[in-house]
């Protein structure tokens, strides 16, 4: 008969724990099991840990934090990621965010994307900015006709708007910021005039 790992008495309780694919078997007598809180519901998962070592504890903690995560589109889980080293689909970045943030934190120095955006994305953004600045050509904007009535400052505005749109499309953001400020200034002065 197996002996209790703590006191050497005959073991009556056998506990198998699987953490990070590593199986650990703990054998103990009733007394020791109670002493380590195995039979106390509240402390069940953690009471054992001091004797199982800090490494194991860290493993459990990490697992618990990402436990239960599953990608709703492809079914990828933290476990399947650990096995293959690859994610299942773009949606994993949303549904397994906790796992991804951990990996990004340890493998990358920055946390936010600072590079280029897909062209389609930029175009959408340009339209939004133009709309916000009242420079959109869409009839819904309502100021197209007004813009064409006045000659000099309006055409200047139009020109600036076009430059702004080009600057953003070509990712010249510093120039875009300057143009945006210039547009605001011009619009403000125009407002004061009228």
């Amino acid at each position: 008969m197996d002996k209790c790992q703590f006191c050497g008495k005959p073991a009556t309780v056998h506990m198998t724990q699987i953490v990070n694919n590593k199986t650990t078997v703990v054998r103990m007598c009733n007394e020791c099991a109670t002493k380590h809180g195995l039979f106390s519901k509240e402390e069940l998962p953690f009471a054992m840990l001091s004797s199982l070592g800090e490494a194991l504890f860290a493993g459990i903690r990490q697992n618990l934090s990402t436990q239960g995560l599953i990608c709703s589109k492809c079914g990828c889980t933290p476990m399947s990621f650990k096995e293959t080293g690859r994610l299942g689909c773009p949606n994993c970045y949303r549904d397994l965010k906790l796992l991804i943030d951990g990996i990004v934190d340890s493998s990358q120095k920055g946390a936010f994307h600072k590079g280029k955006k897909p062209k389609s994305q930029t175009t959408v953004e340009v339209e939004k900015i133009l709309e916000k600045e009242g420079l959109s050509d869409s009839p819904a904007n309502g100021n197209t006709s007004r813009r064409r009535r006045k000659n000099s400052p309006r055409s200047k505005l139009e020109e600036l708007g076009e430059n702004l749109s080009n600057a953003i499309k070509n990712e010249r953001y510093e120039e875009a910021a300057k143009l945006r400020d210039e547009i605001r200034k011009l619009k403000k002065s125009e407002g004061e005039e009228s």
Partner: protein
Amino acid sequence: MKDFVKKLFQASDLQHEIMPAVISSRIRLARNLSDSKFVKYACRGDLRAVADRCEKALLSYPSLKNSDVINMSDLQEYERMALVERHLCSQEFIVDTNEARLLLADDRLISVMINEEDHLRAQVFQSDLNFRGMFDKINGIDDHLSKNLDIAFDAKYGFLTSCPTNVGTGMRASVMLHLPALVITKQMNNLILAVQKLGFVVRGLFGEGSEAQGNLFQISNQQTLGLSEVDILSRLTQIIKSIIDYEMNAREIVKKERMVWLCDFMGRALGILRGCYLMTSEDAINGISLMMLASDLGYLPNALRNDLAQILMKIQSSHIQVLANKLLSDSERDIKRAEIVRDFFATVPNLRFH
């Protein structure tokens, strides 16, 4: 020999301006379609659909319309390996060839792997350090793709990739350097550590996990998130320029302090290259590397540098088999390799040390 392989061998022998220590540079972008599973998790049908869409989008880009698209599963193993030896695709790409397609632009300086670990991995090569020109080229392709395909992108994480270590720009830029003097003066370990501290990696001839042969090293960025493409490229350029300076200094030191040893080392190497009847690829690469150094230092005509870079390509195992058009055993390859090397170096003049 298949047509595309023939074309490959004719067109991609890079004729370029000689820049000491720089062999080639490369920029690679990883992209995925937003509505499809990543390659490792996708079924064959999904992969075929992805490949068809990507291929169509790529071929509609004006400068890619005359490209060849190769089904990797149609090739012999040694033919696939020859593409790896040319750095036109990765080693991982030839392991699982399920719906894996390779697009090769007609100038062979742009290649796109479809269904590697990401749906699209586009790369552009050049033989100098002109990252700006290269980035413009690949950026044009990328813009075209994002207009025609729904590319997976997130405002925080940037371009989404199957492995989170590539997320952000999805860009890997690398430069192949020839650093014999830093190896001779035993400076490489220090250099590797210093480069690592700056967030860049030094690898051997064939990237991840490969050994450094022929004093050839690949330096590339590790970080892909939190820096813009331009930041990454300008940092890498700065690092490469200072490594080249270190190499040039080390060459001067070796010439000054160990000239007799250097003459002996190169002289013996040329003797072996001219007289061999059996030659392993490692020995050939190391020997040719020394002759490249001799040419850089003016002990051999400078004009030989391009020919040496070409012979370095031709002596690789799969290239020899592609030329022979059949699978060869190790010793058969060593015999063929020795033949190529012997014939070439018979025409090379003697070393002239001033």
